[in-house]
């Protein structure tokens, strides 16, 4: 997937470059030399069985985990050597909302806005709460929110500082159909402004959204292709790898 510079003439610049990424926890090697890249504006869908290393890859890109080996740059900055600009450039949406349950929606967003130094804080918060249909719950503590509402607020938290790269870890997990519609609508709205990496088991969503598809299995890239191929054949390959991964 990683193209040489001469082959990339005229292509969008690379937003994410991963070369030889390894990650070990104690003696267990979870990532075994992953290499891939993603151009600006691209959407990479990563599939794979449980425990394959998908979330670990995402957490390394998010600077939450330090790579054991390899060179990883996001938005032109090395995640290990220069993590601050990487953090400014990314937003992470996970199945855990990363919200303080005893603060209100507004207090949560104000806190994160202050941490990122968002200019025009109140206007931005109002804009996002309206866009995510949460204005009427602005002053309610998050503990009283449904799972779908918390996830919508988590989306607001993640895009509050207008990140260039959005990392999505099972973003549709636990959402009701209405919340899925709102989330997908929002993704469509901001699609042109961001680069996306999404880890998912939802093959239909991954194929629908991805411009590049990748299957990770046992810490290695088992299969990759550009979007636009035959969904049925990709689905067959995916099922084969997931079954193999589950059997390990």
């Amino acid at each position, binding site marked *: 997937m990683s193209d040489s510079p001469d082959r990339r003439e005229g292509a969008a610049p690379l937003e994410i470059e991963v070369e030889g990424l390894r990650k070990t926890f104690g003696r267990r090697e979870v990532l075994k030399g992953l290499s891939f890249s993603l151009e600006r504006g691209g959407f990479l869908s990563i599939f794979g069985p449980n425990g394959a290393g998908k979330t670990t890859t995402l957490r390394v890109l998010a600077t939450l985990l*330090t790579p054991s080996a390899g060179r990883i740059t996001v938005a032109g900055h090395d995640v290990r050597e220069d993590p601050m600009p990487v953090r400014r450039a990314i937003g992470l949406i996970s199945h855990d909302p990363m919200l303080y349950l*005893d603060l209100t929606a507004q207090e949560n967003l104000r806190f994160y806005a202050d*941490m990122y130094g968002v200019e025009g804080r109140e206007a931005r918060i109002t804009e996002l709460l309206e866009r995510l249909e949460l204005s009427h719950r602005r002053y309610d503590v998050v503990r009283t929110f449904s799972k779908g509402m918390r996830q919508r607020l988590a989306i607001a938290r993640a895009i509050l500082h207008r990140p260039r790269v959005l990392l999505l870890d099972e973003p549709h997990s636990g959402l009701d159909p209405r919340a899925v519609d709102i989330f997908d609508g929002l993704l469509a709205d901001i699609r042109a402004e961001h680069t996306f990496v999404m880890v998912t088991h939802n093959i239909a969503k991954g194929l629908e959204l991805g411009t590049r598809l990748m299957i990770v299995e046992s810490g290695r890239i088992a299969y990759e292709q550009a979007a636009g191929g035959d969904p049925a054949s990709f689905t067959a390959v995916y099922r084969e790898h997931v079954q193999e991964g589950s059997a390990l």
Partner: protein
Amino acid sequence: MSGWAQFRAILRKDLIRELRTRDMLVSMILFVLLAMVIFHYAFTVKENADLTYFTGGMLWVTFIFAMLLGLNRSFAQEKDERCLDGLLLCPVDRVTIFFAKSAGNLIFLLIIQAVAVPVFTLFFIEHNYAGDLLPFLVVLLLADVGICALGTLLATISMNTRSRDLLLPILLLPLIVPVLIAATGATTLIFAEGAGFADLAARLLFLLGFDAVFLVAAWGTYDFAIGE
């Protein structure tokens, strides 16, 4: 984004959360008051016995155990819903997180002491120490800074472990002994003998040195402590 603004944002968030739920403050205040009642009965072996020379020890042992309760809770909220990940995703210097969390813990400890010290005085102190209030407040503040700096650092290290409720006291109690000795000695001298700054100079300098050592240690190590 300035570190100062981020410091204020983290501190404000912790204060709003605690003042809304009061789960940390209420448990700490209850613990301190109950401990004093228990000390009162445990040490009153004889009617009108003079307990003045035990007072410093009772006071600081109570505060340190109360702080253990608070430290565990102060980081438990960051683990809920993976809020710590949200915090670590922000472009914030890890040392800023340390100072903000320490400042929050210091404020909570001072609130506890504002409630506990008058009650403690009522129970145990016969000598009027109003004239020595300033040295006492300085001892309180210096010892509190050391307890909160070391406590915040160790609570951060232990928060990612399975047995964090057990690990924190095992790590904190041996390391906090120097503060306990200096603060207990100074407090007892104030209560029992009306000691002033000149009499307490060595102990105050020791507390100041302890604070400096652990603030610098946290400065150098917090990035690793709060990481994976």
